[in-house]
């Protein structure tokens, strides 16, 4: 739309002319206040809605997806370690190890299909490689059953594929999903913009009130008072709710950090177990595996320490104790193996500490995830009704300012 310069100047003259007379000025103020009230209400509603959606995304999408990605990694890692132990045990493959391997593969597939929703590219890599991995494992089993050492070569090839391709891809998937969680948490943060606008609106109402008092020598204007009250309540409401949400989100950050640390601890546990087993499979040629075991164990200890600092719970304490016991047994396994008592070493590896450590970590992760879910639920509950409330208050504010100023305007007729 193009406005000729003539009418535009005429419009400017009319508005400035209006602003020069008191009634004109009052009419302008009415327009400004009504628009400001509705705009501030709309902005606040928009930001509250954004927070709500971010929280909903956290509870129903990001966190479950991050958990699925973590499960992909864990299940794959465990499948590989279990396949190696089954091989180590000699003779007929123990059925409980076979079941564990099958469960891991099924779990990895299930978790993968959940994670596909958000990261189709990363999961496609994994989906393409997992059947190749299981194929190699089956070839290894078939050869092993016939007493052919080439079975061990297939197992090594499968494990190599797992370590160099599948696990790094799963790691990347997990990182992508946890990044999504922290982005959603950022979005649910304090809405500075809309709180600022709401505050500015309250100030504008107070200034208008003062202006009217000076001009008309009336102490109070009921309409404006109602509008100011509504705007103040709205501001207070949004600020309080936002502070509460911010608090809950920050607690949820702590919880998800703890989940992350514990999840890494669990992966380190399984990695260390895999290395421990491979040290024995390699029969004296396993120095690299032992070196890896020591490194991963140190990392695991650090992670458990960190988890303790993030909030000491009984499950984490127990995990720490079981970790120490496991390390002691490992020491004995190494001593037996180095002293040439290979069969004793193999017998010792079948100890309960690894499994109970894993169980404690699963429990601790479950508790931390529950904390997260509770925090997000509380945050969502505190936002309940805010959108409707803010909208109603905005309408009251607009109506109040219009009515209050209308009363004064009438006096000039």
């Amino acid at each position, binding site marked *: 739309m193009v406005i000729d310069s003539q009418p535009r100047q005429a419009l400017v003259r009319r508005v400035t002319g209006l602003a020069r007379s008191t009634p004109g000025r009052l009419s302008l103020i009415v327009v400004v206040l009504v628009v400001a009230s509705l705009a501030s209400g709309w902005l606040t509603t928009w930001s509250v809605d954004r927070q709500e959606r971010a929280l909903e995304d956290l509870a129903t999408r990001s966190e479950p997806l991050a958990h699925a990605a973590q499960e992909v990694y864990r299940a794959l890692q465990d499948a590989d370690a279990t396949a190696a132990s089954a091989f180590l045990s000699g003779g007929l493959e123990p059925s409980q190890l076979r079941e564990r391997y099958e469960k891991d593969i099924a779990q990895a597939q299930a978790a993968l299909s959940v994670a596909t929703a958000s990261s189709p590219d990363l999961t496609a890599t994994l989906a393409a490689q997992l059947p190749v991995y299981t194929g190699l494992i089956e070839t290894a089993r078939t050869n092993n059953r016939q*007493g052919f*050492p080439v079975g061990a*070569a297939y197992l090594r090839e499968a494990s*190599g*594929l797992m370590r*160099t391709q599948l696990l790094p891809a799963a790691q990347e998937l997990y990182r992508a999903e946890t990044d999504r969680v922290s982005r959603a948490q950022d979005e649910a943060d304090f809405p500075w913009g809309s709180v600022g606008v709401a505050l500015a609106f309250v100030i504008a109402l107070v200034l208008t009130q003062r202006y009217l008092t000076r001009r008309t020598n009336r102490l109070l204007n009921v309409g404006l008072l109602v509008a100011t009250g509504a705007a103040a309540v709205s501001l207070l409401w949004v600020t309080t709710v936002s502070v509460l949400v911010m608090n809950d989100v920050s607690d949820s950050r702590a919880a998800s950090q703890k989940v992350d640390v514990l999840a890494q601890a669990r992966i380190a546990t399984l990695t260390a177990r895999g290395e421990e087993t491979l040290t024995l499979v390699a*029969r004296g*040629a396993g120095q690299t595996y032992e070196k890896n075991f020591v490194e991963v164990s140190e990392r695991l200890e650090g992670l458990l320490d960190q988890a303790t600092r993030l909030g000491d719970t009984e499950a984490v304490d127990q995990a720490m104790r079981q970790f120490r016991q496991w390390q002691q047994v490992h020491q004995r396994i190494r001593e037996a193996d180095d002293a040439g008592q*290979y069969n004793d070493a193999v017998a010792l590896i079948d100890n309960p500490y690894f499994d109970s450590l894993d169980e404690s970590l699963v429990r601790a992760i479950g508790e931390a995830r529950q904390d997260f879910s509770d925090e997000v639920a509380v945050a969502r509950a505190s936002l309940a009704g805010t959108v409707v409330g803010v909208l109603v208050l905005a309408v009251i504010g607009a109506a109040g300012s219009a009515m209050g100023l209308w009363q004064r305007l009438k006096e000039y007729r």
Partner: protein
Amino acid sequence: MRRLALAAVMLLGACSAGPAPSEVVPRSAVAPQPANASTVSAAPSSAANPPPSCDATASLRPGPLPAAGQMPPGSTMAKIAQRGRLIAGVDQNSYLMGFRNSFSGEIEGFDVDVARQIAKAVFGDEKKVQFKVVTAAERIPMLQSGAVDVVVRTMTITCDRLKDVDFSQVYYQAGQRVLVRRNSGITGVESLADKRVCVASGSTSLGNVVNRVKTTVSVPNWTDCLVMLQQGQTDAISTDDTILAGLAAQDPYTEVVGSRFTDESYGVGVPKGQEDLVRFVNGVLERMRTDGTWGGIYRRWLTPLGPAPTPPVARYRD
């Protein structure tokens, strides 16, 4: 009415083309390889210089063998006796020579039985031996670091290796041949010029073929080569007939072709400078040859290679 609608739709379709139908693009298929597989372009450094010449297969003459449990004080054998077990570096991936019995979990084979005979001579008990699995490339470092007392692992005596370790007399005479898929048309080493061949890293076989084939792939273990052959990643495997026989026994669709094109004399590897242990091991091997133990062990493991030959003749440089 319907015709009218159809016409309208067709008219619309004519002016506004929809997006091309989506396609599912497959990722490139995953081709797994054995861990640490690599392509070798040149022979190992030693082959660049002419190999040092020496009388490689002449070892130290054994004295009378001490009775089991009575090792001469101060000798290397006495130290082994004091430890309570012999530590032998063996293979767990060479079927028939040194391999892991997947049912019992024990390591078995021709080389393993030779190691057991040495333990039997020291302790009077062939079970007093700890096996350490070593890859081909680890044999010399493990002997040098003292991690093992002896290495009995299809180890060819060469002048090059004699600079770093000592060897017993020859306990088995092998030769390099070629393993291929049955329908490959490859008849021996001479038809490998345009082929891809797999060998274990750190083996003498590597230097023997690297200049006679198009591409050489090296892997840590011989069974990794069989994996590559079965997966079509290599055309042939070339190494000692003993090892090839073990690989062929694991896959009926492979065969050993061509004649021996090298002589590989296996000796027991001993750390450099332990002459007493070399003489002792030679004594054990001498006894195995004369009392028929050697033939017994051969028949137990290596019958797929043909009937037992006469054991290699010992040569000594005193």
